[in-house]
């Protein structure tokens, strides 16, 4: 296990250092996976708001299943898709805690659609980070509800055929129709500017919870270079050129 270097070199001041909310554990994500960037942004938000000691995360099933090992805060591991329901229970039992869930599209948009929609509709005061990489990453690259039309996956080798498998599910647009949620936004992390925007959105989602405003969901359109079978840098371009056509970025619902 590597030890975090905290010694500042002589004559230098830190510009960026590893967030304190992250543990020393190496991320188990594949090289170039956008999950890593998003996990780091969540840790930065927790650091910036100084809420590490009263934060409880809810880990999903999927690529981020080991999330509880990466953070220095309390965690609960939810059954597949049920993170929003578990978060609801934790938050209602102890409203002083800051509760967030971190889910992928196989978790939140497939098996957990019902839990997510109802938590949003009730306006539960929780923060949801939704990583939409349009594929089931951990199980080997099967088609997800969010897979783009024509996109090749293990289970759609000829590309997703919308006549038999339907169209990509736009969860954020669905939730934005409801009266319950406070903040629904879609962001991406394929370049530095968008990383900064995603960081601000995640911070706002946590701030909403601190101020008791209600349900906040930040969807982050991500790439899975491993299962797309492309190099990580091309994964960034793929998000920019392909995924954003179907998942346009921006705030879908903001209630003050």
């Amino acid at each position, binding site marked *: 296990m590597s030890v975090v270097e905290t010694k500042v070199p002589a004559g*230098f001041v*830190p510009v960026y250092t590893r967030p304190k909310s992250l543990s020393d554990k190496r*991320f188990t994500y594949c*090289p170039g*996976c956008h999950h890593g*960037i998003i996990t780091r942004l969540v840790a930065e938000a927790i650091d910036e708001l100084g809420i590490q000691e009263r934060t409880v995360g809810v880990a999903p099933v999927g690529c981020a299943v080991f999330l509880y090992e990466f953070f220095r805060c309390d965690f609960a591991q939810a059954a597949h898709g049920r993170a929003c329901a578990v978060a609801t229970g934790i938050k209602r039992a102890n409203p002083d805690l800051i509760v967030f869930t971190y889910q992928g599209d196989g978790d939140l948009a497939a098996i957990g659609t019902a839990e997510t929609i109802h938590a949003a509709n009730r306006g539960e005061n929780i923060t949801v980070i939704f990583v939409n990489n349009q594929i089931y990453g951990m199980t080997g690259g099967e088609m997800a509800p969010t897979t783009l039309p024509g996109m090749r996956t293990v289970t759609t080798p000829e590309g997703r055929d919308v006549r038999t498998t339907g169209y990509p599910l736009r969860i954020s647009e669905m939730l934005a129709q409801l009266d319950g949620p406070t903040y629904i936004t879609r962001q991406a992390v394929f370049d*530095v500017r968008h990383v900064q925007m995603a960081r601000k959105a995640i911070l706002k989602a946590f701030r909403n919870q601190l101020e008791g405003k209600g349900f906040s969901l930040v969807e982050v359109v991500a790439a899975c270079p491993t299962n797309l079978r492309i190099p990580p840098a091309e994964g960034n371009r793929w998000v920019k050129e392909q995924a954003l056509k179907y998942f346009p970025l921006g705030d879908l619902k903001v209630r003050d």
Partner: protein
Amino acid sequence: MPKGMVVIDKDRCKGCGLCVETCPFGVLVISPEFNRYGYNVATMGAPEKCTGCGMCAQMCPDAALDVYRAVKEGV
């Protein structure tokens, strides 16, 4: 003396190259050196060009990069 410096945690780096792609000055390169997990790690190929902007660290998916900026003389 360079304006900035990137400290790379070699055990965390997975050699994805997003930092190399992002750096506007071509400071970082993927080295032929392996870390203990078998990844070719990123390293500073041209340290004198670094300005300490921190863009590489913003993109790093493994939080492996720490960025430092030189203290300006006379401040």
